[in-house]
């Protein structure tokens, strides 16, 4: 499979997260866990700082958690100018209990009602788009997902 994100590769971070973006493009939310000691790690690392293992598992994770923090941006800065028509927009840092409390960024989708730290959120996966720099993305929605759209945990 030719991945869109690989054609729009952003360098600058640690860079061990290709599997994350591949998975999102395939429609699955996966986060890395050390094969050696089982600790969840996010952002993805090449080597486990706890046990020294170089191997990771990427289990599928139910994208359900809570708002750890958030900001509402009123300006589209240079490198994210594709967001200009969305201003103001909210970005949520969601804490995922099932993945050891990993905190994963995503733009907010849907109503802002109830936006606060600790509020329940669930994620929906968006395909690659210009607004997300040619990458797939997870978007967080406030509330508890209705059973019809998934079976929860």
């Amino acid at each position, binding site marked *: 499979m030719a991945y869109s994100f690989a054609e729009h590769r952003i360098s*600058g971070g640690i860079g061990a997260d290709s599997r994350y973006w591949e998975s999102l493009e395939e429609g699955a939310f996966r986060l890395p866990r050390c094969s050696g000691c089982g600790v969840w790690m996010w952002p993805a690392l090449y080597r486990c700082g706890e046990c020294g293992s170089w191997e990771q598992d990427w289990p599928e994770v139910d994208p359900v958690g809570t708002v750890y923090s958030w900001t509402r941006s009123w300006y589209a800065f*240079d490198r994210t100018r594709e*967001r200009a028509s969305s201003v103001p927009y909210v970005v949520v840092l969601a804490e995922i209990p099932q993945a050891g409390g990993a905190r994963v960024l995503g733009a907010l989708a849907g109503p802002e009602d109830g936006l606060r730290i600790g509020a329940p959120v669930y994620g929906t996966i968006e395909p690659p788009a210009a607004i997300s720099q040619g990458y797939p993305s997870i978007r967080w929605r406030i509330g508890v997902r209705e059973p019809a759209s998934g079976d929860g945990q």
Partner: protein
Amino acid sequence: MSSSFRGATAIVGVGQTPHYKRGTSGEPELRLCLRAIEAACTDAGIAPQDIDGFVSYGSERNDGQRLMPALGTKEMRYAGLVWGHGGGIPGALNIAAGAIITGQADTVVVYRAMSEYDSPRVQLAVSQSDTAAQYLVNGLDAPAQMCAMRSQRLVEALGVPASTFRAMAQASYFHAQQNPDANGYGTDLTDEKYESSRWVSEPYRLFDCSRENDAAVAVILVSAERAADLAQKPAYVLSAPMGSAHGWGAREENHEPYWSAGFESVARRLWAESGYGPSDVDVSQIYENMTGMGVSALIDHGFCTPQNAAEVITVDNLTVPGGRLPINTSGGNLAEGFIHGMGLVTEAVRQIRGQSVNQVAGAALSLMTGGPGDTLVSSALLGSEDTL
């Protein structure tokens, strides 16, 4: 306290160009850099060609190799760059001092120059294109947005009132009224003016965010022994630790404690090596890329706790002459201007010399904290001869 570092070196010269609004200096970075270094040499009474060490931080592009032909450098003996961004400023003082203490160099300049005349948008030059995909994909580009989430946590989860952010901004603007070179000179930042300013990224308003400038700053370090014979009153480097604790570093919003500015381990070493504590400090230059991160830096250094921050971080308490915790006495990054934080070092030195436009009477211990929330941070405590 057995430290071969404490008080072994001093800042003996400072120089800086005016703060030009970004893109308006009409001068390339290298030229601004040379102007600042020459000014620092003149201030110190040192010949530019005698500088033998060059140190900077972040994404500084004007390496010593490019400077030495125009300075007439007799011999470059030492060069170094502290990784990261503004977090590394006192760290740059640290490695400059280390070079002098170990005999690798005698006269070291620490400097930073930025100009949009021949450089990319200053904001990009500062972030040096090292932003992880996770940010840009989700609409986060500027440090203001990332720091906003950390400050939101400080306010909403730890209960530190946003009034502390306003106090940081107003204290800086208050001090800028005595500094004609400050960008905020002539701006009376009333409660109403602050509260009605536009949001940038909540909880930050326009006046919570620093502004970038075309400008350059340089300071010169020599051994304490040499410093005693030079023109200016020395500002001794008592301690300038750098680093990051376990759980910090490059973690893409997964660092701990999340709301913090990252100084806990550095501050612990700062107080231990210097032999002083927060209550001993006379005046502080607190790097505030954004107000909320300056509040976190004050908490990290032990000036207050999340519980009593609202009582400690008030305009009255942060300003000269009456405040017990005077900060950013030339206007700081917010109201004087932003040379990637380096202007705070010169002001910390001026306070020791008694040359600040908002002088703290008898200032002997002068703190400068580096860029808060960076993946590597550092702090420096400068002192007069009496503090050695």
